[in-house]
Every structure is written in C-alpha cells, then in structure tokens.
C-alpha cells in the first residue's frame, strides 16, 4: 500500500479565475458577505425556538426602555437559553471548521481532519471516561473539578493522543505525513477500543448519557459550558492567523517551506496544539459533530482559493454559520422536541464527503 500526498485533481466546477490569477479581492468580498450572513443567522437564531418569545419583542423592549414590556420569562428564554446556545454553536462551528482547515494545510491533504488523526477519538475517550467512571472510581477527582471535569478530560485526551501521535511519527524533528496518518488510524482504533470497554461496563443511566453526548448536541448549552470551553477555543482560533503564512509555505512541502524562511517545526507544533485544543474543547461540550471540518474548507477553496490568510477567517465564519443553520434544522424538524445536531451535520456532511472522495479517488493508492 502506498500513500500519496501529491495528487489532487483540480475540481471541475469552481469559480472562474481572472487572467491575473489574483483572487484576493474576491476573497475579501466573500469574507464580508459571510460576516453579513453570520449576523443574520445570529439574530434569526436568537429570535426562533420552541417558546414564542420573539427577538424583536425583546429588542424593542430593551430599546424602548419600558422594562414592563419584557417579561421575566422572555429574559430567561433569550439570555439563559437561546444566547448561550447560539454563542456555543458559533464557537464550536468556527473551531471545527478552522481545525479542519489547519489540519488539511498541515497534511497537504484536502481530506485530513482532526477526526482522521485520532484527536477526536482521544478527546472522546477522555469524555467517556468521565461519564462512565465519574460516579465510582473517579468520583473524588470529579469532586475537585466539578463541571470542568468533562471538558478538561476531553482536552487532555485529545492532547495525549496528539502527543503520542507525534512521538510515533516524528523523527529527528521531522514529521512524516504518511506515518502520522497511519499512526492516527492506529491510535483512533485504540481509543475506540478503550471507549468500547468503558461502554461495556456502563450502567443504564450512563449509557443514556453516553448516547446523547456521542450524538453531538447543543441542547445543554449553558454559560458554564461556555466559560469552560470558550477560552480554550478562542485561544486556538486566535492562534490560527499566525499560522496562515507557514501553512501557505507548507503546501509546497516541508523542505520548500524551510527554504522560504518558515520555521517549519514551530508551525507544525503550533498547528497541532491549536487543533488538539479546539477539537478537545468542542468534543467535550457538544460531543461528536462531524464533517464541518471537511465540508467548510473544501467549499471555500472552490470559491476563494486555498490561501490560508483568507481561508482561515472565512472557515471560522462559514463554520459558525453552518452550525447555526444545522442547529435551527435540528430544532425545527421534530419540534417541539429536537434532534441532536450531530445527526444533522452527519446527514448533510457524509454524502458530501463521499462526493469529494469520488472525485479524488486518485489521492489514495491502495
């Protein structure tokens, strides 16, 4: 079996490119457009839900100064239910999409995703450990960390699996892309097996918790969760712009990036840390929400091109918007109940992923 990281046919449909080959003006326009889209979706999400509280009523209540217009119930619905959900959804969407874009740049492979290199599975193992053993063996530890135990465990799991992966795949300061992908598959399988053992010993209530966590959901969004996961995600997102230049240089290979003056090893370390942090924190608070990291950067590359200084911010915006849309769908389809959002993203994302695979079968030579 040979792994090739070099061949990727140019997509057949894409936006026309001007003769000068410069797509930066268009990229800036698209980013501006995405900001508007996101703003609209943000307001729409705040104003819609199972309760009949309308955002406009609330807004006019606030602006008009007539506090009687705003019932306590409305305040609670907007401030404690919808707003945290929208904020958490945005953070997670942005973090998943940016993690995907960074990983793909690092691996020079449009199909790479934190899920593929085992970061997601490692984070999952951390979370499952807390859910299953939290009431028994780990009870004293959980007592110390409280609500932060789950995100910390997932972050730790993601980081440990990334570092293990790094130990395996890095030799003399150089990381082999193929070895890292293969090691990621092995580590993912191991984390999966350990998770399976934990699921096997779980009791009925734990199984129920596990199932809902694993499906991925924003339903339990609270300010506490945002305080637990938000800073980690924001830190990772803030680091991304500093990686753009290095990731651009890396597309021509590590040696060429070095020739161009990029500190390759530092870019790789930072990229991996940022991805582990963002993925771990997202997985902890919302479980597995798949395919955002593959779909968003891929769509954007077709329209604005692969330059990371535009791709990364655009991914954050489109990822956040996409998650708000998926969340709206998850609340509307079976209202007044709701679907876990992971089901929605997988239903939309998996066929899309297969479509990319179909068009790029030359990528993996098996």
């Amino acid at each position, binding site marked *: 079996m040979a792994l090739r990281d*070099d061949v*990727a046919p140019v*997509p057949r449909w894409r936006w026309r490119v001007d*003769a000068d080959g410069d797509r930066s003006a268009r990229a800036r326009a698209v980013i501006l457009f995405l900001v508007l889209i996101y703003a609209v979706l943000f307001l729409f999400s705040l104003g819609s839900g199972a309760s009949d509280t309308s955002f406009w009523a609330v807004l006019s209540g606030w602006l008009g100064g007539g506090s009687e217009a705003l019932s306590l119930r409305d305040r609670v619905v907007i401030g404690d239910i919808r707003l945290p959900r929208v904020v958490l959804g945005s953070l997670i969407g942005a973090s998943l999409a940016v993690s995907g874009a960074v990983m793909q740049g690092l691996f020079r492979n449009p199909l790479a995703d934190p899920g593929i290199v085992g970061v997601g599975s490692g984070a999952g193992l951390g979370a499952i450990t807390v859910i299953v053993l939290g009431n028994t063996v780990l009870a004293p530890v959980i007592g110390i960390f409280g609500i932060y135990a789950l995100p910390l465990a997932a972050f730790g799991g993601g980081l440990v699996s990334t570092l293990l992966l790094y130990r395996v795949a890095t030799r003399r300061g150089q990381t082999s892309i193929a070895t890292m992908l293969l090691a990621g598959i092995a580590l993912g399988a191991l984390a999966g097996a350990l998770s399976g053992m934990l699921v096997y010993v779980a009791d009925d209530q734990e199984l129920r918790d596990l199932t809902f966590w694993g499906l991925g959901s924003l339903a339990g969004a609270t300010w506490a969760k945002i305080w637990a996961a938000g800073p980690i995600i924001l830190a990772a997102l803030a680091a991304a712009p500093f990686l753009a230049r290095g990731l651009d240089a890396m*597309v021509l290979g590590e*040696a060429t990036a070095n*020739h161009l*003056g990029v500190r390759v090893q530092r870019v790789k370390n930072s990229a991996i840390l940022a991805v582990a942090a963002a993925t771990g924190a997202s997985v902890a608070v919302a479980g597995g929400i798949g395919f955002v990291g593959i779909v968003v950067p891929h769509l954007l590359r077709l329209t604005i*091109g*692969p330059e990371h200084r535009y791709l990364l911010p655009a991914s954050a915006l489109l990822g956040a918007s996409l998650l708000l849309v998926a969340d709206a769908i998850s609340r509307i389809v079976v209202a007044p109940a709701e679907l876990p959002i992971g089901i929605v993203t997988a239903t939309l994302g998996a066929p899309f992923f297969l479509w990319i695979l179909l068009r790029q079968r030359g990528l993996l030579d098996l």
Partner: protein
Amino acid sequence: MAIEVDDLSVHIGRKAILSGVTLSVKPGAVTAIVGPNGSGKTTFLKAVSGDLPFDGEVRINGEALKGMKPWQAAAHRAVLPQASSLSFPYTVREVVKLGLLGGRSGANPTEQAQLPERALERVDLKGFAGRFYQELSGGEQQRVQLARVLCQVWQPVLDGQPRYLLLDEPVSSLDIKHQLIIMDIAARFASAGGGVLAVLHDLNLTARFADQVAMIHRGKLVAAGAPAEVFNDALVSDVFECRIQVGVPPSGDLPYVLPQSAQL
C-alpha cells in the same frame, strides 16, 4: 563573500553519501555540479540548502549555515527543488507569490506587486498567471517554480551581500529552447553579482554556461575548475563509466562532449 563548503560529509544511517567535499561557490559565477546518477549531487545541494544534517562546515557570506534561522538563510539564497507537487488548486500567480513570503525580494514596494508577472515573463510564461498550477505540464510547472525562486531573491545583490540560486536539475524536463532560457536566467543572475549553484545532467549545457564545474563521483569531489580544465576524455569517461570523447571546435574554446559507447 561566497558559499564556502568545507570538508562536507553526509551520512544516511552508516552509509557515507558524501565525504570531505570542499568547494567555493563564488558570486558572479555559475557553478555546476555534475556526476553520474547516485553520485551525491542532489545530496550536496540539499546539504548546502540546509535540508540535511551534515558534518563539516557551510558558510554563506562568512556566516555559518548551522547557526542560521530559516528566515536568515532565506534572505541569502533561494532553492529550486527537483519536483514540487501541490494538493490544493493554487493559481500560477499564487504559487509564484509564495516566493515573496519572506519579504526580502529586494524590490521596492511598487515593484513588488508586479513581481509575479515579471518573473513569469522571464521564464517565458507570460499570460499563465490565471491558470491552475496542477493543469500545467511538468516543464511548465518547473518554470513556475523557477519564477517563484526568482521572486525570493529578485535582486542578486542585497545590502551589499551577494545572494545565491541553488538549482536542482533546473532543466531536466524542458525542451532545448527553454533549457537555454533557464540557463540564460542563471547566467544573468550571476553576471548581476549573484551566485548560482546548479545540479546539471547535460555536460554540453554545462560546458556552455558554467564558469566552474564540480565533478562528483561516489560521494567525493574528483575535479573542480573551468569546463575546459575539467572536461577531458580520460576523466569524464572514468567518472561516467562509459566511453566519452571531449572535443574543442576550431571556432571557440568551449569544449563539447560526445558520448561514444557504454563500454569503456
């Protein structure tokens, strides 16, 4: 001022790929490295580029390569690798622009914006800026990469320091016209005060364009000097392990190299 290579050795595992190579790559000249397949030419270029750990010393304009940060080395030299592949749909302009990443092209800010187009024009790819890199032929891709490399060290001399082009088989997949265009770019870079170190396979092209030839055989430097000094029947036949005749046309002093037979 030069790239000075002093007693350079490279080991991969226990195997010595290069041993004890000492060579000076001077500004104002094109230095060609020749030798049979597997002799260590590319390894030499990679060591000088800073891609491989090595024993011995490489100094660029008097500064040790081993202590240099990547961006410092990038201001001194640009490297054209043998093959470059891309997995994302970059346009030709976007690839060439990567050469400007370090910000040390030496062009003034107004010139900088047009540098990709001008570099493309030099490598005979005018009008290719909006094409997709992956849709080009191998030879065209190689010239796009050369345009990128030229952008990185656009001024052959910057702040009084000569800069260097390190080229690994820059003409290997090109037709004769474009081989000449590329070698001419190298020669012009050298005559403007920069230095060029190029791995070449074609001995006649080497004789035509190189000021200095370094011949490498089984990891050792066997000869270095002007083409007319280095190229002689006995040495070339011996190194390439086949019968080769070297001649000098009556019209000039440049030698030509004529292969005779695979048997010595």
